[in-house]
């Protein structure tokens, strides 16, 4: 009884803190439509700052609390909304997810930059550990009582705020119709900013309260993930209802506490189970709760754009990629080759995102986790030989990929009726569950009947890692670095061409249709469930293949190699590069596998070599770790990705072959110079990127006809707004309006000279966009 009471109180306290965090999440989601993945990271930053102010600077507790909770929290939230989130209107769900994910990763890097993770930091409970009261014989610390009390007060406060205060009522209105709110004299922007300030305050509050409860040690990753546990509670409240969120949080807290109390000590997996419990709950809640019904596109058109390459140009690009990689191979040393190979395997995993998110508009936040499944399968059935002679077999990879596709189906099948964000959350729950539970399975179990010992993720003797030797089939031996690199590149190229062919097929068009308008697809007779299931399986298979290759490139893998943060940052970088493009996957994969790690290590290198400017270089190195996140946050401004701009700029060069040939020649010279060691490899890389970036500019500058053409491409409704009226323009307007006959003869003559005259009847709409435009305005 005593044990029960102790753990019940602990569960309630934990639930209370979850409730505070989760209600902040619900608040911001409702007013801005953005599900804030950085909520946990905000809590983490708040907790770290509190530690700094309280223990680092030695400020008394009340003052420290005022500074962190009263000033830092609301300020951070308000600024986040005004600077970043406001720009996310009319963007796809995945863009919103990526921006907040980037923010989360950025905050994690930032905390590592400011607060060295090697240092131990502890936060002491309010009034100390010894400050306790006895409730029915159970010891409860004052801190726990304060946490519980705060949770109750926050709950009551939010209730009053939403139903009694004018601004609170308005905030509820913002959920339903921001436009209407504006008509009633409220400023939706200000209301959203206020809600973000409140949300951030709640996150920071939860962070400060949580640390002493969960042991007192400040640890950035785990604190961030702990608050992510609150997602389950928020989803239980369907991201709308605060009371339901509170109930969900309490159930979650109590469940975690009881598992801790009552699971038998012999269950080695119990502690892993406790850790992953919130994610299991999240998954179940997502599946069980009723969802919103199928709706049309919520925004008229999102800002994301993509060009569709033909299969022929994809084949050319694929071949070119292989050639380029082979040529670059000549400039690289062995460790470079290994790094680039790793990046290429990441790119293969990123292809699964291009297919699923770019083509079909669905989300998978745990792509790398699917790679873990294929890795485990091919480890258990596909490795032969011992020591250096050991190798992976094709058979193992094939079965691994198939199993991954099946697991993908099993995971997604219940979640498929969910859309967008909810499916994304379900995959995230699966990913975290996998790393926290399945990949932690390193102790051998005795399997009944066949009397062998078996563990899912262990190379033996309780070691929590797997050694994945390279593949060898016939003459193809990936033990050789160059062969591996070229093979990985060919695999990427073939899959990429396959994806482009798929996108150009009837299946690909149906995927696009589903992405653009599920409602229209369904009423045309498309079974969305079947289509989603097939594309999810296909995407899981691609991720599985990429995952096995990644494991081979790494040689030995631990659960950390499949962490959810890795999946998230891969998704982020792929979206930044252009999620709808195969080349976006290439760039995203290379960036997350190679790019930033390389830059950071280069700066560290420079810092150690140049003592006098050591400070500057190590600053740059730290800054470089934050860069990916900064780029990710910037994706809100350019949601189509950088590959899209790149393609756009090179499209204009198609009619300027001389510029292209010239650029190619310069590049060839650079390559030869670098090959003969006249030019350092870094210089080669830098000059090449400069050339690639500036070539389209050169093309534009040398092409005046093109510029004129672009000016003429302005739609007639907007003519004359950002460039002066010309006679030609006037004539065109007259023609479009059909008022030529009313004009004085000399202007008519001019207009005839300037262009074909329409006969004023028949296919008006074809030649007269303006007439049709006026019609638009009338509807």
């Amino acid at each position: 009884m005593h044990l029960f009471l102790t753990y019940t109180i602990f569960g309630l306290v934990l639930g209370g803190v979850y409730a505070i965090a989760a209600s902040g999440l619900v608040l911001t989601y409702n007013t801005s439509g953005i599900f804030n993945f950085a909520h946990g990271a905000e809590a983490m930053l708040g907790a770290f700052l509190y530690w700094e102010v309280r223990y680092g600077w030695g400020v008394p507790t009340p003052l420290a609390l005022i500074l962190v909770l009263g000033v830092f929290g609301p300020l951070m939230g308000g600024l986040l909304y005004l600077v970043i989130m406001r720009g996310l209107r009319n963007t796809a769900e995945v863009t919103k997810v990526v921006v907040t994910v980037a923010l989360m990763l950025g905050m994690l890097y930032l905390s590592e930059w400011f607060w060295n993770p090697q240092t131990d930091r502890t936060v002491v409970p309010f009034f100390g550990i010894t400050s306790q009261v006895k409730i029915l014989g159970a010891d409860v610390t004052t801190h726990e009582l304060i946490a519980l009390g705060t949770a109750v007060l926050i709950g009551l406060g939010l209730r009053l705020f939403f139903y009694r205060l004018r601004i609170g009522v308005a905030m509820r209105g913002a959920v339903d119709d921001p436009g209407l709110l504006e008509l009633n004299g409220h400023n939706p922007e200000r209301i959203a900013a206020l809600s973000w300030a409140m949300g951030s305050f709640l996150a920071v509050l939860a962070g400060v309260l949580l640390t002493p409860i969960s042991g007192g040690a400040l640890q950035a990753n785990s604190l961030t993930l702990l608050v992510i546990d609150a997602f389950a509670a928020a989803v239980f409240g369907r991201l709308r209802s605060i009371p339901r969120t509170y109930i969900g949080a309490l159930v979650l807290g109590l469940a975690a506490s009881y598992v801790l109390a009552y699971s038998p000590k012999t269950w080695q997996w119990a502690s892993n189970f406790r850790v992953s419990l919130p994610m299991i709950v999240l998954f179940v809640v997502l599946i069980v709760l009723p969802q919103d019904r199928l709706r049309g596109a919520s925004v008229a058109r999102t800002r994301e754009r993509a060009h569709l390459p033909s299969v022929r140009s994809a084949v050319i690009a694929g071949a070119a990629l292989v050639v380029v990689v082979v040529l670059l191979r000549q400039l690289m040393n062995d460790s470079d080759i290994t790094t680039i190979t790793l990046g290429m395997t990441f790119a293969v995993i990123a292809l699964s995102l291009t297919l699923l998110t770019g083509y079909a508009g669905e989300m998978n936040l745990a792509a790398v986790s699917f790679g873990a499944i294929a890795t485990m399968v091919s480890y258990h059935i596909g490795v032969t030989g011992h020591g250096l002679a050991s190798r992976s077999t094709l058979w193992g990879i094939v079965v691994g990929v198939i199993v991954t596709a099946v697991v993908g189906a099993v995971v997604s099948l219940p979640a498929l009726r969910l859309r967008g964000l909810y499916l994304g959350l379900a995959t995230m729950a699966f990913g975290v569950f996998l790393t926290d539970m399945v990949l932690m399975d390193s102790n051998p179990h005795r399997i009944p009947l066949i009397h062998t010992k078996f563990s899912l993720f262990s190379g033996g003797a309780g070691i929590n890692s797997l050694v994945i030797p390279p593949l060898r089939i016939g003459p193809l031996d990936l033990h050789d670095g160059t062969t591996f690199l070229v093979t990985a590149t060919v695999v990427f190229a073939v899959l990429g061409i396959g994806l482009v062919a798929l996108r150009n097929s009837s299946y690909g068009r149906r995927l696009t249709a589903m992405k653009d308008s599920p409602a229209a697809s369904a009423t045309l007779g498309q079974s969305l469930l079947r289509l989603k299931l097939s594309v999810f399986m296909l995407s899981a298979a691609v991720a599985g293949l990429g995952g096995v290759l990644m494991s081979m490139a790494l040689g030995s893998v631990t659960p950390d190699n499949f962490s959810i943060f890795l999946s998230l940052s891969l998704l982020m970088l792929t979206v930044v590069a252009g999620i709808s493009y195969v080349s976006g996957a290439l760039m995203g994969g290379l960036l997350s596998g190679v790019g930033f790690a390389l830059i950071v290590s280069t700066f560290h290198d420079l810092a150690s070599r140049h003592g006098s400017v050591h400070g500057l270089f190590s600053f740059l190195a730290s800054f470089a770790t934050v860069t990916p996140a900064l780029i990710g946050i910037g994706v809100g401004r350019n949601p189509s990705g950088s590959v899209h701009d790149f393609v756009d700029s090179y499209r204009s060069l198609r009619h300027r072959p001389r510029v292209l040939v010239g650029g190619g020649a310069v590049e060839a010279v650079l390559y030869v110079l670098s090959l003969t060691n006249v030019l350092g490899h870094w210089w080669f890389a830098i000059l090449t990127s400069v050339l690639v970036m500036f070539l389209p500019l050169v093309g534009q500058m040398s092409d005046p006809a093109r510029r004129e053409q672009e000016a003429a491409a302005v739609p007639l409704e907007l003519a004359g707004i950002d460039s002066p009226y010309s006679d030609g323009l006037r004539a065109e307007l007259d023609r479009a309006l059909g008022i030529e006959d009313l004009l004085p003869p000399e202007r008519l003559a001019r207009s005839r000279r300037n262009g074909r005259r329409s006969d004023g009847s028949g296919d008006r709409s074809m030649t007269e966009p303006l007439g049709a435009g006026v019609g638009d305005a009338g509807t």
Partner: protein
Amino acid sequence: MPALEVSDVSVRFGGTHALQNVTITVEEGSVTGLIGPNGAGKTTLFNVVTGLLSPTGGRVSLHGRDVTAAAPARRARLGLARTFQRLELFTSLSVRDNIRVAGDIRNGWGRSHRINVAKETERIIELTGLGDIAGRDVADIPTGRARVVEVARSLMTQPTVLLLDEPAAGQTEQETEVFGVLLGRLADSGLAICLVEHDMSLVMRVSARLHVLDYGQILAVGRPEEIQNDPAVIAAYLGGAA
């Protein structure tokens, strides 16, 4: 047997009745008009018929088969197609691919339904007069023509019952004229068409029968000339006592 039969359908959103015991029939080979002021429940009715919304009561049958509980895709396979008042075009596809993908979807129904998608696409483009913009990005065309693209797309699935939700809104006078002729031809070919439209001259010209919906209830049913002289309809439209 009517091609589409909606009997006694009711829909409640919270406390408000969006539809209240609505009964309409749509016959083969003719256009059935459905008119009513904004907010009368016309689009809600279409959503119920196509399965995007479940009614709180009543039943929907297609060619005598009860489909009240069927999924949207299932109804499409039984011959139902629709257009959307708030355009639901596939914005990343060209006009031609918007039409073609509907054929792709039809071909996904099963072997017995197969059509030659490429050929049929060109036939439909020709029929609906979209040839001049077939290659354009669907986001760049005027609303009036986008509505025709929606009609063309729905024709690709070879429907027997077609629901049109304000297809003429945004069309120019000449376009509407041409569109009316197209509707007549489609009806003559045996299609059952239900037309929601605010352009009264079009509705009156092409409809064989009209249903008038107001505040979620059927106000009147009859031939166009009967409806035009119905005092209740005049009151609903013009307000006050007629």
